[in-house]
């Protein structure tokens, strides 16, 4: 699965996710990627999220929307909400994987609970950073 989240100069957020699914998946199986609120979500009032991982668990826990809900109703920061969902809601329920997220101030969060995450970030300063297997 690949994806991107962004905050532009106007403070607008967007998310995009694309995948081939799992190797040898059942024909017709659809994971969290195209399920809005599970693997892909964006709302200027909270955050934009793109996820990757064990898709069925992301769907059952509406992972992306849960991060936004924690920010909206619980007053949590993006990083607090994203880490809670990935490290507790997903990790404790056989939901390995991770996500990238951004809020309307341009803050980024990218927690994961498994091996094998390939990530990149860049800010307005032009600080390009790519990482493999580490946060």
């Amino acid at each position, binding site marked *: *699965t*690949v*994806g*991107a*989240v*962004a*905050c*532009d*100069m*106007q*403070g*607008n957020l*967007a998310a*995009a*996710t*694309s*995948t*081939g*699914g799992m*190797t*040898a*998946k*059942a*024909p017709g*199986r*659809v994971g969290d*990627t*195209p399920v*809005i609120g599970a*693997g*892909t*979500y*964006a*709302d200027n009032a909270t955050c*934009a999220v793109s996820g*990757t*991982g*064990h*898709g069925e668990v992301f769907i059952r826990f509406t992972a992306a929307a849960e991060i936004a809900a924690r920010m909206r109703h619980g007053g949590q920061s993006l990083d607090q909400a994203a880490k809670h969902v990935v490290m507790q809601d997903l990790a404790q329920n056989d939901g390995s994987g*991770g*996500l990238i*997220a*951004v809020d*309307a*101030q341009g*803050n*980024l969060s*990218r927690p994961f609970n*498994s*091996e*094998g995450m*390939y990530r*990149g*970030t*860049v*800010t*307005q300063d032009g600080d*390009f950073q*790519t990482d493999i*297997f580490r946060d």
Partner: protein
Amino acid sequence: MTRFSLAVHGGAGTIRRANLTPQAEAAYHNGLKRALQAGHAVLADHGSAMDAVTAAVCVLEDEPLFNAGRGAVFTSDGVQEMDAAVMDGATRMAGAVAGILGPRNPVMAARAVMEHTDHVMLIGPNALKVARDAGVPFEDAGYFFTQARWDALQSTLKMRRDGIEDSDPARRHG
């Protein structure tokens, strides 16, 4: 005015750390950086977050190393079924496609659903028609074939036949 930022992730399917050669690692870093550069160029030119994320994802879909678009994995039937979605935080408009094969960039098919229909998700022939009518480029099945993904399928199917398929997250992740 907000300071812009962008993040990308690029899953590689069934590849373990032990199998990651220095050359492959460098290639993954390069692919991620090219995606960042594509999105950064949009944002630095005062472009929209939506244009930036689709530009970045198109780069990742075009790179066979990653499990999406050209590098998509195979189903148990030996075919490719791709899913993609976009969502715009300013409007809550969203578009998604599932189970498709044909558009070079499935993320642009998803964007076409968002921009050219009243719906959020389309599957099957009508998803392809919306993409085609929107001018999204299409490719033959051969464009999307990669030997590494085919070999990963055969390996997984053999494990399944032998009753030794494990729950390795690398196998369950996109």
